[in-house]
C-alpha cells in the first residue's frame, strides 16, 4: 500500500516536472514565434526582409577601377610631392601622370579596406553582415581608463543613434513636477522617438517615411514624388523606428538589424543621393548606399559623415555648404526645408574648430558606438554617455585667453559667470527658425506643395536668440534652467523672459510675414500676434495661478542647483494642434501631422486627423500603454493625469483639439559656429548692450554698475560684425 502510494507520488512529481518543462519550452518557443507578430499587431508597425538594390557585386576588374578612383587624389598628392623638384611645369605634369599609372604606386594606398577586401575577395557589400565578418567585436576605451571588448552589433543596436530613446536615468531634464526624468521610480522610454516637437511637426511613427506628390513649377504641372520623414537621419533602414526597443524585454527583429546603415557614418564615399524613400510590398522605408565603392572607403567617422545628417539642424538644408542637400536623391528627392533648427553651421567657413580641422569625435569622444552629447542639455534627447563631459574647458582649460596681455585676465575672469558661447557666437544664420506656424501653411509654387509658414526666422541677438542663466538642466519642453547667483527671486524665466517676444524688429517682422503669407486684416494680425508677444495670454487665470505655484514649488529649486552661467539660447515656438483634454499650465499634448496630407492639401486639421489614426497614437490613448508610459510622461509635462479620451470622435471629427502656440518659448543650446574673436566689452557693458541685465534678474544698482563699467573705456569699443544696438520695449 505504502509502496504504491510512494510510486504514485513519484509519478505525480515526475509528471509535474514534465508538464512544467513542456510549458517552459512551449512558452519560450511561442514567445519566440508569436511575440514578433503579436507586437506588430499591437503597435501596427511592420517588419520584413530589407533588400537594397545598391548592394551590387562587382568584377575584380571593376574593383580595381573603383580602387583607383578612390585613391586618385591621395596618389596625386604623393606623386606631386615626388616631382616637386622638377623645374619645368610640363615635365612635372608628365612625370606625375607616369607615377599615377605605375602599378606599385597605386597598391596599398588610401583607404585600408581596399586591401582588406581585395585580400578577402569581397566583391559585394551586403550590409552589416559584411562588416561583422571581421568586426564581430571591437575594443572600447572607457573614460575611467579601463578598456574592454563589446559585441559590435549589440553596441550599435543599443546606441541612441539606433534606438532614438533611452529607458534609463541620465537626462539633464526635469519635469514640471520637479522630478528629474527617469531618476527615480520606473523609467520610461524618452527621446526623439516619442518626443513631440514643433520643428519636424510629426512623431517618428507618423512621420517615419513619406512619399509626397508635388507639382513643382519646373515640371509644368507634372507630379514629382518627394521623400520626407524622420527616417532619413536614422541608421536603421526599417519601416519604423526601433519601436521594439521601447519595452524592457524583446529585441528588434533580425531583419531590422540587417537594415542598419553602417556606411552613412563610416564611408567617405557615401552617396547621399541614395537616401530617398522607397516603397515595397511591406511599406515605405528609406533607401541607403550599399555600393562596394562606399564600403571600400570606410574609415572612422569624419565630420562629413556626421554632417550627412547633423548639418540639417546646424546649418539647415538650405545652407550653401550642406553637401547632403546637394545630393537630395536620384529618385523622389528629399524635401529640403528653409528654416534651420539652430542656424549655426559646423563648417570651416563658420566655425573656428572646423576650420582648424578638428573632428566631431575629438570633442565628442566615443566609447565604442556610444557617443557623448555632453552633460548639459535643455531638450529631451537621449544621451548614450550622460556622464561624459563634452566642454570647451576639456581642451581650452578654464583660462582660455592668452593672446591679449591687457585683457586676458579680465576675460578669464568672465569664465565664472559667462559661458564661452556667449561671446564667441555673435549671431546665427538668418534662416534660423524662431516661429513656425504649422496650422496655416503657405503654398509654394516653386516646390508645388504646401509648407509650414516660418513667420519669424532670425539669427540676431534678442530676436533669434537670447541670453539666460543656465546650470545645465532643462525642462520637459526645452527651457534652460538656472538662476542669477544673487538668488534674489527676481529671475523667473518661465513666468517672464521665456514667455515673451519683446524685440520690436522681431514683432514687426512677424507682422510683415503674416500679412504677406496669409493676407489677413490688421485686426486679424493683431489677434495673431497676441500669443506670440505674450504666450501666457493663452492660459486662463486659474491655469496661470497653477503655473505660478508649480514653478515656485517644482522649478525654482532646480534653477538654484549648482552654478549658473549666462548662455546664449536659440528661441523657438511653434503653432500646432493640441489635445486640449490633456492640457496643463505649460502646454497640451501636441498632435502630429500626416506629411502627404499636409504637403499635398494644405488642410492642416485634416493632416492631424489622418496622423492620429496611426495605431501607435491610438495605443497611447489606451491601456496598458497609458500606464506603461503616458501617465508618467504627462506628470513630467505638468499634467496631473493622462486622459485616455481619444481626440477623434466616432464620427471622425476632431474632439477638443485646438491650434495653439506653446505656452513658453523653447530654448535650444548653441555650441557650434564658434568664432575666434568674441564680443568686446562694450557689446554688452552699455545701456543698449546685447545682454539685457534686467531680464537676467540683476538689481537696479548692479545693472547700473554693469552698464557703466569705468574699465570699458580702456578697451576697444565694439566688435567687428556690427553688433547692432538692441532696442527693447
Amino acid at each position: 500500500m505504502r509502496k504504491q502510494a510512494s510510486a504514485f507520488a513519484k509519478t505525480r512529481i515526475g509528471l509535474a516536472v514534465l508538464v512544467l518543462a513542456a510549458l517552459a519550452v512551449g512558452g519560450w518557443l511561442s514567445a519566440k514565434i508569436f511575440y514578433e507578430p503579436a507586437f506588430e499587431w499591437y503597435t501596427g508597425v511592420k517588419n520584413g526582409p530589407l533588400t537594397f538594390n545598391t548592394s551590387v557585386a562587382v568584377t575584380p576588374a571593376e574593383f580595381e577601377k573603383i580602387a583607383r578612383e578612390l585613391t586618385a587624389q591621395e596618389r596625386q598628392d604623393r606623386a606631386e610631392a615626388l616631382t616637386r623638384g622638377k623645374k619645368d611645369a610640363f615635365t612635372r605634369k608628365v612625370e606625375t601622370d607616369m607615377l599615377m599609372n605605375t602599378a606599385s604606386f597605386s597598391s596599398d594606398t588610401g583607404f585600408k579596406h581596399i586591401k582588406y577586401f581585395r585580400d578577402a575577395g569581397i566583391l559585394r557589400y551586403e550590409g552589416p553582415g559584411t562588416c561583422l565578418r571581421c568586426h564581430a567585436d571591437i575594443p572600447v576605451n572607457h573614460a575611467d581608463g579601463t578598456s574592454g571588448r563589446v559585441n559590435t552589433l549589440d553596441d550599435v543596436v543599443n546606441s541612441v543613434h539606433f534606438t532614438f530613446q533611452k529607458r534609463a536615468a541620465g537626462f539633464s531634464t526635469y519635469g514640471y513636477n520637479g522630478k528629474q526624468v527617469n531618476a527615480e521610480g520606473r523609467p520610461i522610454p524618452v527621446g526623439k522617438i516619442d518626443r513631440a516637437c514643433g520643428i519636424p511637426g510629426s512623431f517618428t511613427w507618423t512621420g517615419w517615411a513619406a512619399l509626397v506628390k508635388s507639382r513643382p513649377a519646373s515640371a509644368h504641372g507634372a507630379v514629382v514624388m518627394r521623400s520626407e520623414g524622420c527616417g532619413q537621419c536614422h541608421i536603421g533602414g526599417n519601416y519604423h523606428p526601433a519601436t521594439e526597443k521601447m519595452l524592457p524585454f524583446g529585441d528588434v527583429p533580425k531583419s531590422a538589424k540587417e537594415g542598419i546603415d553602417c556606411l552613412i557614418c563610416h564611408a567617405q564615399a557615401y552617396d547621399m543621393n541614395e537616401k530617398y524613400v522607397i516603397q515595397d510590398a511591406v511599406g515605405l522605408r528609406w533607401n541607403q548606399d550599399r555600393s562596394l565603392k562606399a564600403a571600400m572607403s570606410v574609415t572612422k567617422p569624419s565630420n562629413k559623415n556626421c554632417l550627412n545628417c547633423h548639418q540639417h539642424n546646424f546649418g539647415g538644408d538650405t545652407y550653401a555648404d550642406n553637401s547632403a542637400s546637394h545630393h537630395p536623391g536620384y529618385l523622389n528627392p528629399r524635401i529640403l526645408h528653409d528654416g534651420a533648427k539652430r542656424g549655426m553651421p559646423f563648417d570651416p567657413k563658420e566655425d573656428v574648430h572646423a576650420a582648424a580641422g578638428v573632428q566631431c569625435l575629438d570633442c565628442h569622444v566615443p566609447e565604442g558606438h556610444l557617443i557623448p552629447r555632453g552633460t548639459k542639455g535643455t531638450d529631451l534627447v537621449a544621451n548614450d554617455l550622460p556622464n561624459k563631459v563634452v566642454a570647451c574647458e576639456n581642451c581650452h582649460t578654464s583660462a582660455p585667453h592668452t593672446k591679449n596681455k591687457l585683457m586676458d585676465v579680465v576675460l578669464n575672469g568672465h569664465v565664472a559667470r559667462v559661458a564661452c558661447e556667449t561671446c564667441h557666437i555673435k549671431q546665427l544664420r538668418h534662416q534660423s527658425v524662431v516661429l513656425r506656424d504649422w496650422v496655416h501653411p503657405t503654398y509654394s509654387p516653386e516646390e508645388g506643395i504646401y509648407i509650414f509658414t516660418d513667420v519669424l526666422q532670425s539669427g540676431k541677438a534678442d530676436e533669434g536668440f537670447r541670453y539666460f542663466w543656465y546650470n545645465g538642466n532643462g525642462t520637459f519642453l526645452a527651457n534652460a534652467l538656472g538662476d542669477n547667483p544673487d538668488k534674489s527671486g527676481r529671475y523667473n524665466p518661465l513666468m517672464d523672459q521665456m514667455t515673451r517676444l519683446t524685440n520690436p524688429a522681431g514683432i514687426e517682422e512677424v507682422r510683415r510675414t503674416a500679412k504677406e503669407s496669409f493676407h489677413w486684416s490688421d485686426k486679424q494680425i493683431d489677434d495673431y500676434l497676441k500669443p506670440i508677444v505674450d504666450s501666457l495670454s493663452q492660459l486662463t487665470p486659474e491655469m496661470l495661478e497653477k503655473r505660478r505655484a508649480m514653478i515656485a514649488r517644482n522649478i525654482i529649486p532646480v534653477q538654484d542647483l549648482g552654478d549658473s552661467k549666462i548662455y546664449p539660447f536659440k528661441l523657438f515656438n511653434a503653432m500646432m494642434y493640441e489635445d486640449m483634454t490633456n492640457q496643463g499650465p505649460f502646454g497640451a499634448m501636441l498632435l502630429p501631422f500626416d506629411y502627404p496630407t499636409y504637403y499635398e492639401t494644405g488642410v492642416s486639421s485634416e493632416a492631424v486627423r489622418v496622423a492620429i489614426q496611426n495605431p501607435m497614437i491610438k495605443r497611447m490613448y489606451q491601456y496598458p500603454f497609458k500606464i506603461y508610459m503616458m501617465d508618467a510622461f504627462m506628470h513630467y509635462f505638468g499634467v496631473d493625469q493622462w486622459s485616455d479620451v481619444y481626440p477623434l470622435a466616432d464620427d471622425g471629427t476632431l474632439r477638443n483639439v485646438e491650434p495653439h502656440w506653446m505656452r513658453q518659448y523653447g530654448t535650444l543650446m548653441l555650441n557650434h559656429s564658434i568664432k575666434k574673436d568674441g564680443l568686446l566689452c562694450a557689446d554688452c557693458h552699455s545701456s543698449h548692450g546685447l545682454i539685457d541685465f534686467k531680464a537676467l534678474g540683476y538689481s537696479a544698482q548692479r545693472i547700473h554698475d554693469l552698464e557703466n563699467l569705468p574699465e570699458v573705456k580702456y578697451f576697444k569699443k565694439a566688435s567687428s560684425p556690427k553688433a547692432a544696438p538692441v532696442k527693447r520695449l
Partner: protein
Amino acid sequence: MVRMTTLPQDPATAAANQKCLRCHALTTLGYRNAADGLYVNLSVSPAEYHASNHGKLACVKCHTKAFQTFPHSAKLRRKQLVCLDCHKKDRKLLKFQFPGILREFQASVHVQKLGKKFTCFQCHDPHGFKIHARVSRRVAQTVLYDNRICLQCHGNEPAVLLASGKPQPSLDLIHAWLPHTELHWANVRCIDCHTSPSNTGVSHQILPKERAVRDCVRCHSSNSLLLQSLYKFQARQERSRDGFLNATILNQSYVIGATRNYYLNVLSFVVFGLTVAGIAVHAGLRRYFNGKRAAEDEKRRRHGQP
C-alpha cells in the same frame, strides 16, 4: 577651533579693497604664464581674505600703488612679492622668527631642487593664510590644514610633473611600508616626518625623502619627536593652563598614540575605579562577616554550648 587673530577692516580700507575685489573676487580671474604655461590665479575670495591673518590690510599695502591704476601694466606681472618684505622689519612679528624660517626654507629640498621658481606662495596663499598650529586647540584640525598645503601639489600629478619634470609617484605606494597609513595621515602632518626639527614655530626645512623619519620609535616613545613639532604648542598651552609641574608630569608620561585617546583614558579610569571598588567591597565584607562570626562565637561561649 581656530581663534580669529585679525581685527575687522576699517571702513576706508574696506572701500579701497572693494575697488580691487570688483574684479579680483571673480573666481576665474587669472592667466597662464607664458614662461612656463602654469596658471596664475589672481582670484581672492573676499570671505576667506577677511577671515585670514592679513584680512585687515589694504590690498595696496603689499601690492604696490602701481596696481591702483587700471589696466595694470603687464610689466607688473613680473614683480614677485616676498613675505620678508613686510615680515623682516615689523617688531610685532619677531616671535614668528621669519629670518629663521627663511634660512630653513632656503635649505629645504624644494628650493635646493627648484631654485627661485619655488616661492613662499607655492605653499602659503597670503590671502587666506591663518596661523594654525600656534592657536589651534584641536590637533586633528591642524593636521588637516597643514597636510592640505602639501597636497595642493603632491596630490596633483600634473602640477608635480610641470614643476619637477618628474612624475608624482603614488603617495599610497611610497608610504605602503608605514603601518596604518591612513591613521597616520589623519593624525600627524607630512612635515612631522619630512622636516628637521627646529626652533622656529613650524620647521620649514623640508628634507629630501631619504632623510625623512622612518623609525617608529622616534615618535612612539616617552620622549617623542612629536612633542617638539606637532604637540609643541599644545604642550606649551597646557603648561600655562595646568601649571608647570602638572603638565610636565603628564606630558613626560605620554606615549603618543597610546594614551592620546580620550575614551581609552576614561576607560582606564573606570577599570581602575572598579578595581579599587572591588577591593574595598571585598575587604569590607570580610571585615563584616569576621565581626559577625566573632559575635556568634562570643554568644555560644556565653550560653555554654560547645
